[in-house]
């Protein structure tokens, strides 16, 4: 059975800013505010809507951080699920048009 791809894109209803190595993200719809750690920041920045999450984890996260690939994938999926629940990321099993310019 083929593996299901997850595609992620940043919502257009957010403001994001990097400061001192951390990414700060604000949902302009409800003013919720998040601070992303280094790994989460890499995933967030790579969320272009057409790169599968597994590829992001393999080529970006595992390349930059000393982390077990399966654990990294599981953590990434949990992170993506949390941020999509807050309207920060859009998630689909089809490629997405990124909403951010």
């Amino acid at each position: 059975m083929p593996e299901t791809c997850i595609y992620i894109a940043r919502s257009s209803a957010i403001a994001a800013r990097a400061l001192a190595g951390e990414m700060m993200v604000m949902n302009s719809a409800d003013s919720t505010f998040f601070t992303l750690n280094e790994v989460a920041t890499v995933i967030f920045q790579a969320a272009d809507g057409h790169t599968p999450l597994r590829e992001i984890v393999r080529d970006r996260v595992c390349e930059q951080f000393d982390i077990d690939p399966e654990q990294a994938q599981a953590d990434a999926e949990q992170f993506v699920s949390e941020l999509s629940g807050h309207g920060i990321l859009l998630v689909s099993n089809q490629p997405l048009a990124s909403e951010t310019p």
Partner: protein
Amino acid sequence: MISTPRKVACVEIGGIPIALSTCDEGFLDLLRQRYDGFLSSSRPEFELEFDLTSTGPVSDDDVRVRREGYDWLLERGDFHARWDPRTGRGSVRQNANPYSLDSVLRILHSLILAERGGFLLHAASAVCDGRAYLFSGVSGAGKTTMTRLAPADITLLTDEISYLRPSAEGYSAFGTPFAGELARAGENCTAPVSALFFLEQGAENRVDELSSAEAVRRLMRNILFFAEDQGLVEKLLATACEFVARVPIRRLTFYPDARVWDEVHNFARNFAGNLQEVPEHA
């Protein structure tokens, strides 16, 4: 039919003169009394025309600030305002009570400041030795207490809403007429910001570092901002990051007696002696 002539009071807060006009003599008197000390003869940058509805209580409804075309609409149960940022002119229908008036002015200033890299902050502020110190926190954290405990030689800018604009030295704080529990308007003056303290009450006085992310988080939580507008939210977050990068921000735990101001004075002395190390965040 001859329309009643409008009378104008120009109110300048934060160096931004706004002409407030009304046909109602009583409301004009209220304006002049409420903003005494902030009345100005400067040429107004912006204009608001007030028309009064029947007197009523201040509304507990949430305020809504949204765009309609180029205009901003400001709405709450006790006021309805429309302002065009292109012309700088707007109109307000509201109750003849001072709290509605304060709310409309605060929202208008927050919109103007957002475009200019400044903001209004839930914070008391005071000038000590020529530099401004800000004390922010949620309701009950001690903003008014800090101003009540202040020594006689400090100048109160506000006990409730601090007015901040970028300047050559970083940021400047301005006095505002928007009073909190102290029920006293601030002095109409300005000073470069030396530090922002987030207040927490405790058993002893101490000053602690905050990480940049925590400083931004706390700052965003206390900035007055009402607009449902993606562009302005992005500007505001950028402004908050800029402020955190340029102004020392600390957590001030304090026991509510006058000795807390010794901590502020100590910080001021250390700041003066270590300019090259400030601002830094963990």
